[in-house]
């Protein structure tokens, strides 16, 4: 008796008789929709389906594929736009039109594209996993290193430079194993590395408030929790555009369709200021909007991190943006509820924290497998959308335990149009000391003392404001007024950054340092004036404020 559908409930399908491996892929129904086995009991298998199951009927056939969900990794990834299970959306559109239909099948990498491969290894040499076989110039100036896949080793029987498609054999090992430009890797399994390393190198975001106050190390992770309208997406996009990384993997997980259109319109037109090349040339976009199937949303972040690890293994510094981690967690919750698992907090499954931890741990700076020896890094920046902007909810809390930086976004700052709306009181970074030396070298010699003084100034301001709101501003002394005005300057000039102004959207550590220093200078001059006995009213801060804003909106120093 062949496997047939016994029940369809949302994206969940029960199939019998079927004995499959967990996470094995299957083609479901006459439309051959892609699904994945998530539970097996006797002859009854439960599958999550990555496509819209409306119209799917009891009795339709199911066929397993004998493999788990894998990412196809090779040249052609850069610049591509994939759905949550790795199908290029352009080719899905070619198959099913402007609206996404069921059963579209398309490989991640274009089978027709031909790549010029330059071999670096020769016949007779023995190779091990991670060894670089040769290179392909994937985009102008962007070398894609073709790796010996994990688990493969032996002596090279043949290997030749030439023009190949990703499916072609470029050579073989002595045991007959063919070598190709691409290979597959199961998305739920972290790719192996030689050694995990610590990092004293920061992930330079180009955003003052992060680099100066709440830095993240390269290979570290940060979360960006914030209610709606607090600017999570703008931050993720600004980082994707301007952060100092070789490759950016951007996962739009359960978010807005029009937002992805923005990314797709902007990225090809934007030039990476460091390399002078289009931002799209270093990007891989994975898009599963909120109205696309939930199960694929769950898979999308694993696809994202697997692609990121693949570029890391080539020796690149990769940034992985996930917008939003909460939508992934909700997809997990939806599946768990349909499986009638016992719920944990707020209906989330009890393994939420575990899964989240395992995901964030795939960030890291590593010495990769293979020769020549090289290092690579994956830095993860995950947006979180807490319900009602309340950070006590399970996803934020679980993520807090595993991330190294938290950039807490605050609705009241957003309402003041203070962007990035990072609340400097509740945000933190565990990396600040680790990367201080780098910033001292590349930003300015007094980077750390400057940072401390600014933090102190902002703290003092908060205290004074609290006092003033109780007893009125009359109760404040002249020095207190100066502190309040100077802190306002810090907020305006240093912390705020306009993502829409070309000169301000990206700020180098040098410029960050110069602005911070100039702003504190104004404060110190004010202090000197007060010390000479003059009243606060005699200090006119308007010219200083204008000068600082001109500095902020001007070019790099």
């Amino acid at each position, binding site marked *: 008796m062949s496997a047939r559908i016994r029940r369809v409930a949302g994206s969940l399908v029960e199939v019998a008789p079927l004995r499959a491996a967990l996470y094995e892929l299957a083609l479901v129904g006459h439309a051959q929709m892609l699904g994945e086995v998530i539970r097996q009991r006797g002859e009854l298998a439960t599958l999550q389906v990555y496509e819209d199951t*409306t119209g799917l009927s009891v009795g339709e056939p199911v066929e397993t594929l004998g493999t788990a969900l894998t990412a196809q990794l090779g040249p052609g990834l850069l610049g591509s736009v994939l759905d949550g299970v790795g199908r290029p*959306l352009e080719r899905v559109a070619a198959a099913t039109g402007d609206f996404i239909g069921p059963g579209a099948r398309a490989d991640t990498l274009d089978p027709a594209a031909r790549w010029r491969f330059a071999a670096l290894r020769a016949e007779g040499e023995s190779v091990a996993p991670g060894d670089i076989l040769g290179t392909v110039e994937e985009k102008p100036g962007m070398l894609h290193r073709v790796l010996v896949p994990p688990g493969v080793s032996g002596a090279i029987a043949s290997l030749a430079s030439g023009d190949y498609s990703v499916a072609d054999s470029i050579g073989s090992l002595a045991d007959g194993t063919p070598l190709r430009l691409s290979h597959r890797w199961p998305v739920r399994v972290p790719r192996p590395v030689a050694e995990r390393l610590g990092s004293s190198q920061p992930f330079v975001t180009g955003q003052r408030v992060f680099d100066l106050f709440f830095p993240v190390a390269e290979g570290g992770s940060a979360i960006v929790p914030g209610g709606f309208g607090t600017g999570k997406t703008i931050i993720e996009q600004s980082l994707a555009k301007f952060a100092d990384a070789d490759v950016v993997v951007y996962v739009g997980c359960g978010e807005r369709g029009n937002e*992805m259109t923005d990314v797709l319109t902007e990225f090809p037109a934007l030039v990476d200021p460091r390399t002078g090349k289009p931002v799209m040339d270093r990007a891989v976009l994975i898009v599963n909007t909120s109205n696309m199937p939930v199960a694929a949303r769950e898979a999308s972040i694993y696809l994202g991190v697997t692609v990121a690890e693949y570029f890391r293994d080539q020796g690149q510094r990769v940034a992985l943006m996930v917008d939003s981690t909460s939508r992934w967690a909700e997809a997990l919750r939806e599946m768990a509820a349909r499986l009638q698992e016992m719920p944990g907090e707020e209906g989330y499954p009890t393994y939420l924290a575990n899964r989240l931890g395992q995901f964030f741990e795939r960030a890291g700076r590593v010495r990769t497998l293979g020769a020549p020896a090289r290092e690579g890094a994956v830095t993860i920046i995950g947006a979180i959308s807490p319900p009602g902007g309340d950070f006590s909810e399970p996803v934020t809390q679980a993520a807090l335990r595993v991330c190294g930086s938290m950039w807490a976004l605050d609705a009241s700052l957003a309402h003041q149009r203070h962007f990035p709306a990072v609340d400097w009181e509740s945000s933190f970074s565990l990396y600040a000391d680790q990367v201080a030396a780098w910033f001292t070298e590349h930003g300015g010699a007094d980077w750390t003392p400057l940072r401390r003084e600014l933090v102190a100034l902002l703290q003092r301001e908060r205290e004074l404001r609290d006092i003033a709101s109780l007893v009125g501003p009359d109760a404040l002394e002249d020095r207190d007024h100066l502190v309040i005005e100077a802190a306002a300057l810090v907020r305006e000039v240093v912390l705020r950054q306009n993502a829409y102004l070309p000169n301000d959207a990206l700020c180098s550590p040098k410029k960050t340092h110069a602005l911070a220093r100039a702003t504190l200078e104004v404060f110190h001059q004010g202090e000197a004036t007060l010390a000479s006995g003059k009243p606060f009213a005699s200090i006119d801060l308007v010219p200083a404020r204008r000068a600082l804003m001109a500095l902020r909106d001007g070019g790099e120093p």
Partner: protein
Amino acid sequence: MTATMERVHRGAAAAGGPLLFLERTRRVALGEWVIVRMAGQADRRGQVIDAGEQATVVQLLDETVGLAPDRAEITLTGEIATTVVGRELLGRAFDGHGASVDGLPSPIGEGVRPINGAAINPVRRARPQDFIETGISAIDAMNTLVRGQKLPVFSGPGLPGLELAARIVEWSRAPRGEPFAVVFAAVGITARESREFVERIRASGAMSRTVLYLNEAAHPAVERLLAPRLALTCAEFLAFDCGVHVLVVIADMTHYCEALREIATAREEIPGRRGYPGTMYTDLASIYERAGIVRGRPGSITQIPILTMPDDDMTHPIPDLTGYITEGQIVLSRELHRRAISPPIDVLPSLSRLMGGGIGKGRTRAEHREWSDQLYATYARGRETRTMAAIVGASGLPPADQRALAFAETFEQKFIGQPGGRRTLDETFEAGWSLLETLPRDDLLRIRDETWQARASKKGAP
């Protein structure tokens, strides 16, 4: 999709609330349309929401009073829910099932479409950037609406959310006089609200380019889940097949979410926040995401859903999840409404995420961004000062704060409030500038010098 033929079952195993449970159904499909017949009663319609060989759950769209499960005759139609679409629907009124309620025969239409729609492939979307002049300053100036956007109105009990939507429908001017239509889905609102809205459309002469789907408070609750989908299916045909720019107004999404909760509870699902199902985000997205523009097709769908924030609480799951999906929100203020400022839009928590693409040189005005930022900043400062002034008195405040305080008052009365009716974009800009010009230059640091001088010389010119 499903090629199965019609099958008839005699008797259901159980019924409860809006749900009917069938046993041993053959080849039932998810979403399949079901007809339930009982002697001496009107036919009831339903949809399969859990399809199983052993047990199948049907969600009924009609009242279940008098339904005896063991005596019902249940027909599985072999079809998923569809509706008739076509240009001839313009000017017509239907109920939440899509049945004609205006006394005219059912339309033949130009096609039949599944009401759940399909997701627009993100790479086929075009970027929404065509400014819609609504004639409302708080929107045009500071929360600009563009074609293809979904911009909800966050109203509160007793606040004029639907009234604002009616005004937008009456006053909106499409940029180049292109074909324009309105699709209205009433979801659980009172007959009075629904009638008033329809009357205003009629009075404005727009009825001939409007389609109505009316599920009022007295109508079956489960039908509320259908009405917005019918409206959007109709809108998608008009927009993407006929090249019409469609404005879809849905009122009230709060009732929609309550119907969703009712079904989830009846199915004994694990409740999420405040008893709403954990799948509500995804469900709401399947409605809101049906706004947009498709590359290479001339029309567009712009959505203005209206929702009532229970107890004016913006963190309630309904506005909260909505805000996470939509491209901004227009928030109404009880305080402004109490002070008879109309429309009572609170611009501080309001937001249009797509504003950036729709404004600026060649679209509205070159200075739009900084001018609007300045209005916002000064007003925000005034509002903050107002709180402070309430505690310590206005006289103790620094002069700049006092100016901001006075500005906030005038801004609410003269800029937000529009007793004189519709304002053109020029009038809105003039109103904003004349307020800003009451302040010294040093209070207006968001305005660049070039802009300031350009304004001065323009004013100086005859």
